[in-house]
């Protein structure tokens, strides 16, 4: 009786082994594939890539905007662009002033405001998605995002604003933060002007007035 039971158990075990063999083979293959994928990903991963991309983006931005704008972005982390800059000639703008302006933050909405009163007008949510890859991709480096917005506003303000999703102020950026940034911008401009005046006093008379709009 015991011998018969042992023999039956052995046969059952052998059959189970035969049946489950493909399952274990498959599991082993999957494990090998996962391990290979992990190793491949590890080999491609470059922790400095994004930092280098941002460094290049900053250099590109610096080469495109003027000294004042570059200093503003470097010191304050955002750019101010006067509204209607593409349509109004330099000379006319100096005479009439500008009715509105934009603050450009990296990867945040563009904020429109009135420079004379500091009143916030709208938020324009805009992105620059990479459409060459349908499955999505990482976003632009911060400084490239700022430069893309700057070029689009300068080159075709209306087109950019038409593409953007418009919202009332406060949708994504805290209006108190924007007000603080406007105050910081005012301080920064006063300090910059004071430094320029001091430097001018130390130099012989300049040939002409500085361009306040550039």
């Amino acid at each position: 009786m015991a011998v018969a039971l042992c023999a039956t158990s052995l046969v059952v075990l052998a059959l189970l082994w035969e049946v489950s063999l493909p399952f274990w083979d498959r599991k082993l293959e999957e494990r090998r594939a996962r391990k290979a994928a992990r190793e491949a990903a590890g080999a491609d991963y470059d922790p400095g890539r994004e930092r280098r991309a941002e460094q290049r983006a900053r250099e590109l931005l610096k080469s495109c905007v003027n000294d004042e704008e570059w200093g503003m972005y470097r010191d304050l982390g955002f750019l101010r662009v006067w509204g209607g800059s593409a349509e109004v000639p330099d000379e006319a703008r100096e005479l009439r002033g500008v009715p509105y302006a934009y603050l450009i933050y990296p990867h945040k909405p563009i904020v429109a405001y009135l420079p004379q009163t500091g009143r916030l007008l709208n938020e324009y949510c805009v992105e620059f998605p990479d459409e060459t890859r349908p499955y999505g991709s990482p976003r632009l480096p911060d400084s490239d995002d700022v430069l893309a917005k700057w070029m689009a506003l300068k080159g075709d303000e209306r087109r950019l604003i038409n593409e953007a999703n418009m919202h009332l102020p406060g949708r994504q950026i805290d209006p108190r933060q924007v007000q603080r940034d406007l105050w910081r911008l005012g301080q920064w401009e006063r300090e910059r002007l004071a430094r320029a005046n001091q430097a001018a006093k130390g130099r012989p008379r300049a040939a002409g007035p500085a361009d306040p709009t550039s």
Partner: protein
Amino acid sequence: MRPGHGEQLIAEGDPSVAEDEERLVEAFRRQLDEGMWAAIPTTSRGGRRQAELVRAFEDVPRDAERVIFFPRAAGGAA
């Protein structure tokens, strides 16, 4: 500009040389076909920095030093 990588050189050459111009035109069209916008940084007479968006290679001034391509703007997260 390419997401995740930043600035990359696509093509360079002298547009007054026929071979170079052909290559530049091809690269320009390919970028626009992929949905990129093309901008040329400029400096006005008063020294003000500007940018000009162009939609065709013929619109690129002959003396332009560079054309910057960046992904087309789209409405952002609401």
